[in-house]
């Protein structure tokens, strides 16, 4: 089945929604694909706030939900998998708005059921996980921890502690930045008042977790001390990483984990734009501004695109403050032991990876990163823990059955 649209947008998070609305409002034919069942991306999850809800409804952009973009057939055809079937969508311009994922780091016990991402547990809660009365330890790094802690509390979870690995001193510039922005105040106060009901600790991180009598027993380092806390879930994520794989597959230049774009969100490949978190982790306002810029420019309205760049640049500056405030401490590299699984898909342990200098070499000999997630979890983990640079991206992006690929030809 082949479809066609002037502008195809991958991802219906804030960036993709803004891009699609902008392009549609300029009269272009637009198609959106997103692998989640609802539009809204990670922050909105199907519940768009105003004015975006109305704008999105009015634009009425055809959207294929539950559809994963996994590769390309030629320069201007996107390959998409939906409910086990492959689909081709031809485009003139492509806007990659694939968002971000959490960085998950290995420590003893991190593969146990009940150990999730921090935003991960929040996402699962928003898609129906009942957390009422369940004990949760939130750990890792980044502004998402406080955000997750607050929303888990609101869902009735008993949040024992929110453990941020960054020291309080390291976070001061970030806190100053929030205080300087009126728009952020209400959000910050809401989170702070929610977190008053729990312990928020800076300079704290998980050392290990085990399962004991049906519960998780988490050992945390809290400054000079260790503390063991019993819980049902350990929600642990160490910041966000842009999903750059699709852009990389298309041949777009990526530097330091960020897709390189110009002031109008154009990548190094003609006709391909990138907006939102793959360009750099900068939050929702920046994602929206970038999406609008890309959408208008792809629709041929450079004037409108240029008008959106201030919002984008504010986000860019914020991105630098974020990265410094939540830089990961070196102690986290030492958490995994030789026996700790690094590649969850193939159960490759850290000890088996000793002696390999590059991820490519390790992959060939151990299957590390060759499993279903295609290295999207262990790649970043290995880069941080062992300093192994990530290997190049190969199609398909997600495991697609041979049948799907065959049906394709």
């Amino acid at each position: 089945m082949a479809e066609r649209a002037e502008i195809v947008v991958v991802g219906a998070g804030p960036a993709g929604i803004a891009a699609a609305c902008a392009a549609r409002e300029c009269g272009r034919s637009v198609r959106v694909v997103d692998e989640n069942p609802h539009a809204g991306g990670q922050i909105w999850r199907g519940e768009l706030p105003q004015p975006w809800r109305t704008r999105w409804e009015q634009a009425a952009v055809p959207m294929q939900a539950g559809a994963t973009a996994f590769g390309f057939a030629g320069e201007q055809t996107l390959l998409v998998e939906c409910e086990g079937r492959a689909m081709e969508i031809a485009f003139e311009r492509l806007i990659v708005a694939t968002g971000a994922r959490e960085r998950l780091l290995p420590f003893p016990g991190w593969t146990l059921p009940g150990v999730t991402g921090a935003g991960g547990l929040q996402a699962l809660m928003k898609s129906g996980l009942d957390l009422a009365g369940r004990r949760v330890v939130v750990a890792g790094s980044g502004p998402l921890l406080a955000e997750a802690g607050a929303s888990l509390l609101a869902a009735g979870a008993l949040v024992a502690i929110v453990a941020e690995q960054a020291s309080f001193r390291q976070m001061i510039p970030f806190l100053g930045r929030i205080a300087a922005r009126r728009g952020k105040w209400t959000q910050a106060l809401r989170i702070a008042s929610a977190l008053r009901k729990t312990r928020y600790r800076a300079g704290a991180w998980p050392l290990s977790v085990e399962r004991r009598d049906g519960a998780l027993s988490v050992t945390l380092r809290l400054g000079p001390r260790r503390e063991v806390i019993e819980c049902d879930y350990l929600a642990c994520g160490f910041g966000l990483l842009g999903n750059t794989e699709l852009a990389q597959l298309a041949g777009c230049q990526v530097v330091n984990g960020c897709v390189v774009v110009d002031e109008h969100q154009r990548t190094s490949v003609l006709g391909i734009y990138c907006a939102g978190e793959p360009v750099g982790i900068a939050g929702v306002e920046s994602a929206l501004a970038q999406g609008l810029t890309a959408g208008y420019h792809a629709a041929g309205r450079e004037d409108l695109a240029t008008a959106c760049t201030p919002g984008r640049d504010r986000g860019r500056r914020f991105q630098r403050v974020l990265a410094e405030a939540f830089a990961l401490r070196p102690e986290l590299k030492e958490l995994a032991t030789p026996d700790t699984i690094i590649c969850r898909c193939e159960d490759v342990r850290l000890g088996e990876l000793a002696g390999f200098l590059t991820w490519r070499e390790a992959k060939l000999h151990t299957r590390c990163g060759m499993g279903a997630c295609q290295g999207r979890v262990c790649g970043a983990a290995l880069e941080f823990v062992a300093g192994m640079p990530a290997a190049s991206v190969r199609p398909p992006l997600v495991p697609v059955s041979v049948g799907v690929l065959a049906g394709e030809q």
Partner: protein
Amino acid sequence: MPEPVTIILNGERRPVAAGSSVAAALLTMGVAARRSVSGEERSAVCGMGICEECRVMVDGRAGVRGCLVTCRDGMEVRTNG
């Protein structure tokens, strides 16, 4: 509260909250989604389609990420699929 829907989990009828994803429903019930290649129990981690730890069989289709699928009445879900 909307009426719960019933899924068929490993051959057994189980009520789950309406609108719940398959991965969230399994976690709520305390049922692991899969066993890893070395036999460890695994369940949902990222909640957003990245980690592949929530893979199950849905209506005969193997390797489906449970966090991206909403439970429907009569849906057949098999763990380890």
